[in-house]
């Protein structure tokens, strides 16, 4: 168990260090998030659709698409000089490699979301009082799930010619439950609805996380094993 964690943390730390050096993916994802939020504001018909009504959808679409952009780079850096083989050669479990990648991706996407949320508050004039905690928890729950699936798909699509196209195509259906859940909970939290309305969605998100993180952890080795 100790070995497993050691390897996972080493891999995650390495990924984050590489990203800190180059910063390209992080900055692009953040800029993208800001851009999407801006466009949502200008694209709506102010008379028909209030900022409160559009807000949650805009936020979660931003989260989802920035997340996909962030996930693309995850295995691209392993491809460059065959670094992935270097990882697979080592006497470490494939599951530990997955957890390392997953943690790095999760950190990355949550960082982008942490930047997007204040922008959202700013652009959409949203009153977060009382809702912030709930939104943060929901964001973490939803992100934990789709990053797991995204990590697995990123590992697959990096071997294809049009990786940047294949990854969104494959992963988008899997974003439906987290994003639908996220939007529903966020909208209700902002409207001050009672917890009872929200619990159902949170349960779905939690179940999704449990099922897909486990499944992805179990399936990742078969992707790496030839």
């Amino acid at each position, binding site marked *: 168990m100790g070995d497993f964690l050691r390897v996972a943390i080493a891999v995650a730390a390495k990924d984050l*260090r*590489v990203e800190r050096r*180059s910063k390209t993916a992080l900055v692009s994802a953040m800029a993208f998030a800001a851009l999407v939020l801006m466009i949502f504001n200008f694209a709506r018909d102010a008379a028909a659709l209030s900022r409160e009504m559009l807000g949650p959808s805009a936020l979660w679409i931003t989260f989802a698409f920035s997340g996909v952009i962030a996930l693309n780079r995850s295995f691209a850096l392993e491809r460059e*000089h*065959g*670094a992935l*083989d270097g990882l697979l050669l080592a*006497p470490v479990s494939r599951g530990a490699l997955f957890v390392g990648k997953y943690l790095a991706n999760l950190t990355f996407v949550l960082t982008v979301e942490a930047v997007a949320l204040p922008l959202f508050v700013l652009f959409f004039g949203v009153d977060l009082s009382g809702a912030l905690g709930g939104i943060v928890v929901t964001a973490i729950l939803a992100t934990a799930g789709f990053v797991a699936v995204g990590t697995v798909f990123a590992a697959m699509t990096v071997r294809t010619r049009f990786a940047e196209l294949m990854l969104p195509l494959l992963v988008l259906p899997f974003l439906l439950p987290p994003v639908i859940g996220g939007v529903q909970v966020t909208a209700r939290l902002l409207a001050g609805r009672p917890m009872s309305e929200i619990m159902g969605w949170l349960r779905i998100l939690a179940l999704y996380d449990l099922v897909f993180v486990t499944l992805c952890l179990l399936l990742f080795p078969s992707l790496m094993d*030839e």
Partner: protein
Amino acid sequence: MSSPRLSTPLAEPPLLAAAALTRRFGSARALAGVDLAVWPGECHLVAGPNGAGKSTLLRLLAGLARPSSGTVLLDGRPLAEQPFARRAVGLLSHQSHLYDDLTPAENLEFAARLYGLPDPAGAARAGLASAGLSDRADDAVRRLSRGMVQRVAIARALLHGPRVLLLDEPFTGLDPQSATRVAALLETQRAQGRGLVLVSHEVHESWKLATHAHLLVRGAWAVTGPKNGTLDEFLHRYREVLDG
């Protein structure tokens, strides 16, 4: 064609052995029943045309891929039963396995952590010193020359003290000086008792190093066994097999 030494009861099993190794998918076959036995101090040259299955063989020996049938044995025990025994193996390929944005020191330290070495930073420093690159320890790999990158890659492959070295086209793209340096290093490793398997479609540079010479064609040995005869004779056989 099994190597006779594999079937003779010996006190010590070979460092690395392959028994009837096959790799296929559906009806396509990359390897069709390959045997190999590598003892300490041996260097097995595996030559062959493109698509013969050389890289596949190496990946199977390294534990990166699973054979469809047959076994890979490390110290006489099947790799499939103890997959982590692959720590006894080091792979040096024409790709460096390094991260461009990190420094050589960081790359080696990461490798040391992966292999569970007790003092990762120290091991990294030692590796860099033996590669003669201590002064470039903190430059991103991206900024190093090809020859220097190769030296870091070698240091990475040797970091955990593997007893078997697998080499996939190690001389490709190297200038003559670097190639000579790599050859000298490999010879030292061999003399120190490591077992080497060197895959190359370019035979000339590797011939001196080799103690055994094999020719792999369409997934099976066309020539196999200790090196006997000259390079010209081997090349002659090589051409014969290709034309035939």
